[in-house]
């Protein structure tokens, strides 16, 4: 990853703009990337210092310095280095410094310290040349490590990585990110929230226009202080956010040494995903939707476009929305056969007082019983064998409909 100081950015008012590498500059960047990659390949076997010297030979105009440093950083991160192992440097140092201290202590007044003599003495004891001793003395320093392997990527790939790395490096200095995301499928959202949770970030999610959701993301301590402590987690989350069909992101930053408060915005539509024809759902969900084509026993099925979050308890992203002729709505989330734990979390969600009615479909293989939520007014479990049955779904929808209105969030007073 790049560090924040390597980002090519300009400030306009309170906004930070990352300079895109486009047009002629991109051509130039590809030239630079090609040179650096080729030199790294050619320097395999040499020291890190020699690689730096070789790279320094590439002519770089003053305004290209940051770009060049960033490219070199990414290549270096992908390089593999090792310490020259002929003589163990700490052992060598230990012997040389002991010999030198002894020699110095034995000097009489007026005698000079014999540096070459000490090196020769140690070299003889180790059956080496004095020059080898001198060279090996600090061969474990980073600058003297040997380059084993250089990355085998193309300049184009490297630049693609650079584009992302620049955006991630900006988020390293973020105190809060607000992301408006459009995902075509419930799975897209689930993956995103799974990653959010994995990064131990906190969020608030609100439905926004045209089926999108606005997610405000920061960490526990952000309640008291705007801290960049979560910047690394936010940067690591960015690739997951960029998976969305469309993303409008705004980050609040503390930029530069002075930690100036700045805003950063990012807007992206993924080519290949469109908002026109709807995205294809997982096969079993698609099949169930097909079975409700038109209407089935008073129920109309459509792909779901909402996320239900009960702060402090959990979150669920339904797959389908069932609307009854009477206007009542019940949501279905298909939990499949992956995680028994997920089923218990949904049960907690229902018991915590979710304001919507939800049906959860779990495979028999998860060894859970429908009795867990048998009489709950706002939630039910549908345990299925093999594949989802439209008939069984309707039965459970009806039962849930007849249980009366959902109670809504519990009052949380002691």
């Amino acid at each position, binding site marked *: 990853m790049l560090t924040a100081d390597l980002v090519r950015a300009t400030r306009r008012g309170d906004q930070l703009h990352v300079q895109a590498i486009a047009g002629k500059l991109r051509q130039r960047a590809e030239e630079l990337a090609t040179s650096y990659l080729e030199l790294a390949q050619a320097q395999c076997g040499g020291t890190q210092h020699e690689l730096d010297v070789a790279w320094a030979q590439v002519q770089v105009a*003053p305004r290209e310095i940051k770009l060049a440093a960033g490219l070199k950083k990414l290549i270096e991160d992908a390089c593999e280095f090792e310490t020259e192992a002929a003589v163990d440097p*700490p052992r060598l140092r*230990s012997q040389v410094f002991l010999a030198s*201290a002894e020699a110095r202590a034995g000097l009489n007044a007026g005698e000079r*310290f014999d540096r070459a003599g000490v090196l020769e003495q140690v070299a003889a004891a180790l059956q080496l040349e004095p020059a080898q001793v001198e060279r090996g003395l600090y061969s474990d320093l980073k600058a003297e490590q040997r380059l084993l392997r250089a990355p085998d990527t193309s300049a184009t790939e490297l630049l693609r990585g650079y584009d992302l790395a620049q955006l991630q490096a900006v988020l390293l200095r973020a105190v809060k990110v607000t992301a408006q995301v459009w995902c075509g499928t419930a799975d897209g959202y689930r993956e995103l929230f799974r990653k959010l949770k994995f990064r131990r970030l906190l969020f608030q999610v609100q439905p926004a226009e045209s089926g999108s959701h606005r997610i405000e993301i920061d*960490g*526990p301590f952000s309640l008291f202080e705007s801290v960049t402590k979560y910047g690394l987690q936010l940067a690591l989350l960015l690739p997951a956010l960029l998976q969305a069909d469309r993303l409008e992101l705004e980050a609040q930053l503390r930029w530069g040494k002075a930690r100036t408060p700045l805003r950063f915005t990012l807007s992206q539509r993924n080519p290949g995903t469109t908002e026109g024809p709807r995205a294809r759902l997982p096969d079993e969900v698609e099949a169930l939707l097909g079975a409700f084509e038109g209407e089935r026993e008073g129920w109309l099925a459509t792909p779901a476009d909402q996320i239900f979050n009960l*702060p*402090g*308890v959990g979150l669920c992203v339904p797959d389908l929305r069932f609307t009854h002729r009477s206007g009542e709505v019940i949501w279905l989330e298909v939990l499949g056969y992956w995680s028994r734990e997920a089923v218990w979390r949904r049960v907690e969600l229902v018991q915590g007082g979710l304001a919507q009615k939800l049906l959860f479909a779990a495979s028999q293989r998860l060894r859970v019983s429908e009795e867990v939520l048998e009489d709950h007014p706002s939630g039910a479990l549908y345990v299925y064998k093999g594949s989802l049955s439209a008939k069984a779904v309707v039965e459970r929808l009806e039962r849930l409909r007849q249980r009366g209105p959902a109670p809504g969030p519990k009052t949380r007073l002691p």
Partner: protein
Amino acid sequence: MASLHFVAGTVELRGVGGELSGLPAECAWDARSACFRAPASSYARLVLGLRQLALPFEDQARAYPELDFGLRVQRTPRPFQSEALAALKQHKGRGVVVLPTGAGKSHVALLAIDLWRRSTLVVAPTLALVQQWYDLLRASFGVEVGVVGGGEYSLHPLTVTTYDSAYLHMENLGARFGFVVFDECHHLPAEAYALAARQCLAPFRLGLTATLERVDGREALLENLVGPVVYRKEIVELSGEYLAEYETEQITISLSPSERAEYDAERAIYVGFLRAQGIRMSGPNGWLEFIQRASRGTAGRRALAAYRRQRELALAAPAKLDYLELLIETHRRDLMLVFTQDNATAFQVSRRFLVPSITHQTKVSERSQILERFAQRKYGVIVTSKVLNEGVDVPEANVAVVISGSASVREHVQRLGRILRRGEGKHAKLYELVSKGTAETFTSERRREHDAYR
């Protein structure tokens, strides 16, 4: 029932509604997780607040045990150590103790751990100090001691870590210690480190330092992060009785004619650029402005190179190293520490005189071997960059040479402190090698402003 939980450096109060009032001010309703939340450092106040409200609660936040052991080695404390402990006790176990390097600050911490008997985290600025605390705690309490940092991660009721590791791990560790000791606590007000202090729920806190004052004046934050200054003794009040006598000598070294010519030429380029651009280096953003403008054009880049070269000449001119050779020979029966400004100069000295170096890149085992051999007089000289600056015990050293250094008063006092540890009839000496007629002369003047440097 209401319950308290430690979550990522904060304390959550769950099971109550957002309308509950009467909690401490720093405790806020968090709609993201439908609970009250406070910085972990407010844990003690929050518990008192809940008791005052007579609200029953289950404490699942506190994860620290009380110690079932105490000091194994009893040493009669010196009067000022007992006074410092009494002052800390008066302030309910939260406060900063200011004592000169070498006066035995760490003994105050041992006494405090023994008094409160809570599992304790000691936070120190460098790995060398971590190692030293590790040895001290093990020997004093006779138990296994944990280390977090420098590639190690082991937790015990007594654990030592660095400020950097504390920043990284306090989110996970913050509930496991009831007492936290911040060694060299003038580091703590830096933004990231301050966060670590706030993410820790330890009700008992002790800060130790020789030099409270910071260039940025942020030491005022310590009151909130640790506690008030409860005890303070200056270096002059203790010298002679408890510290070695010391003398200092500044040696001004002229550059050779060719070095001088090069220095003047490079400096003229650098200064010329500053003038042309109207940059005032004495201004608060002078340096930043210089770096920014220097990156914009060929003239700027040349000026930056010129700046680096003239600085290099002033700091580590060959003439200085020649003089160092003389000092090493003169003091070949003594134990000498050589301090440099940067790693490059430390390696240069190490290679040229074949003496061991300790830098940030030196591994703990090698560092420990070097210090051990120095104590056994198998090594007579150690060269180091900033690593040995703080609190590391090198009681054997009686000569220090500062080849180059920045103008920070604190750094200098600590270098001085290094050779001031108590020793029978010990007489310590500090040399400062400054290049004549260079910008470094000014740095040295500023450095000597501190009381200790007479």
